[in-house]
């Protein structure tokens, strides 16, 4: 039996598979298809200080081997999430990673403190990379100084480890990764979506109401693999990898590039059982490629490993 367990700051994962933030809400819907106990962890939908309505529709559009989304961080606010959503998730044997967003450093700090004080979450995912909101989000993730500042301030108040979610919409992702590592990040999650656009030939205008959206799905996987490979060589903190994973072989590719665990997003929409299916297939897939444990795979794509 292949050992699928992975230990990361604040997280004892029974396997390296978790749903990505924003694609899985707070778990209730997918629990109708399989027990959430099966997952390594769950990354819940982003929380902000106050409720957010999000963007007008259309909010999604399909693209070749992927999709664009511009949801705009719709959520009921951190207090309601803690009161109404987390009790359900706490009934499972499942580390909860809470994604936190904001329009100001003060908001990030408030949300981080509120969630980590609630004692319901195992770790925070600091979302400095959402491309779909006018204020906050990605501008915190594209300037290394601001990224480091928000990381440092959140680390000051958080009782749980903080994983910083990096934006791929930058010239040098390694520079940002090094900056947040130096500011105290316990880990990284990468990558968020790439900004994109689709134009409707009938209306001759951008299809999404927000015009711009975040591209996800298999189309972006090579970009994520390249970025994780580069960042792994530069930092010492662990990486949770994401971007277009649809199969167990994709997971192995991510681990070889340097991820210690992975998150699955868009694929849940095509196959609601995809996380469960990949967890089932991972042991035989690892065996097929000559691995005896997950730990053997992580970073295996680099010359010095």
């Amino acid at each position: 039996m292949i050992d699928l367990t992975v230990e990361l700051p604040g997280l004892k994962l029974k396997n390296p598979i978790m749903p990505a933030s924003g694609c899985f809400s707070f778990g209730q819907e997918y629990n109708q298809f399989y027990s959430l106990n099966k997952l390594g962890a769950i990354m819940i939908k982003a929380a902000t200080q106050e409720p957010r309505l999000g963007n007008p529709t259309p909010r999604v559009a399909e693209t070749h081997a992927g999709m664009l989304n511009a949801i705009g961080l719709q959520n009921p606010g951190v207090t309601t999430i803690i009161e109404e959503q987390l009790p359900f998730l706490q009934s499972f044997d499942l580390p909860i990673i809470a994604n936190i967003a904001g329009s100001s450093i003060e908001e990030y700090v408030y949300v981080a403190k509120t969630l980590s004080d609630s004692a319901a979450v195992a770790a925070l995912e600091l979302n400095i990379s959402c491309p779909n909101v006018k204020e906050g989000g990605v501008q915190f993730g594209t300037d290394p100084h601001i990224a480091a500042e928000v990381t440092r301030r959140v680390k000051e108040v958080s009782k749980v480890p903080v994983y910083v979610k990096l934006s791929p919409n930058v010239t040098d992702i390694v520079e940002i990764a090094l900056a947040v590592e130096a500011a105290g990040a316990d880990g990284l999650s990468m990558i968020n979506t790439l900004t994109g656009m689709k134009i409707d030939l009938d209306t001759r205008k951008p299809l999404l109401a927000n015009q711009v959206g975040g591209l996800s799905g298999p189309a972006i996987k090579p970009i994520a693999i390249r970025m994780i490979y580069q960042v792994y060589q530069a930092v010492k903190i662990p990486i949770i990898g994401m971007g277009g994973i649809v199969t167990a072989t994709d997971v192995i590719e991510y681990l070889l590039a340097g991820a210690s665990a992975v998150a699955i997003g868009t694929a849940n929409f095509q196959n609601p059982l995809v996380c469960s299916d990949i967890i089932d297939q991972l042991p035989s897939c690892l065996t097929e490629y000559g691995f005896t444990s997950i730990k053997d795979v992580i970073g295996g794509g680099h010359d010095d490993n």
Partner: protein
Amino acid sequence: MNQIDASVCHLENIAHATFKLVVKVDHEYLSFIRPGQFVHIQIGQGYEHMLRRPISIADFDLETGQLTVIFKVIGEGTRKLSELTEGSVINLLLPLGQGYPIQQLSLKKALLIGGGIGVPPLYLLAKQLVDRGVSVTTVIGFQTKDDVFYHEEFSQLGKCYVTTNDGSYQHKGFVTDIINLEQLTADYYFSCGPTAMLKAVQSTMVNCPGYLSLEERMGCGIGACYACVISNAEQTAYKKICQDGPVFAASEVSL
């Protein structure tokens, strides 16, 4: 809700770019279907199409295990659906969403108002209403004569008016023109169609309680991704179309 494979029994071009798809499904999945609910159909086998297509259920038959949907080819995904062959297998999530709550309503007279590809779910609704002894009048609107379908099927269940925008089939104009002209009334109305039509129906039928079924681009189809939303009546919050709808009381949403 379930994720199942279904085999294609029949695919027929019933109007301009409009297809009727009949698939075979195990009985256990059919018995819980309510009119107004939808199936979420996977497109192709690989990873080219990551999003499913939400299509309303037009009919089902418990005895034969057949489920019918009617869709219009509007893009690459629906074009691929229109090229399915008999015996091929498609993957469905079903039944999704909240249907028309007819079991909770007391009514003798219903007015069904459909536009374009919003017409299909009203067929299953009309059949079930007639089975419950309700008198059903239907008004269905299309762009032009080539787009018209199911006139005869609805006529077998009650009085059916058809409108076309260009007057090439029956009445010229919009569904609301016929409602005004004939002064159609009911205990409840049930509508499905494009948002512009639903808005017109909502204001024309303002004195009658009714239900609207909405369309929107969807992601997951089960309420997890927040892609398809509609404002509540007070415009203070969004409701999820795939999970809280697609059918809403006309008074609870702001179109």
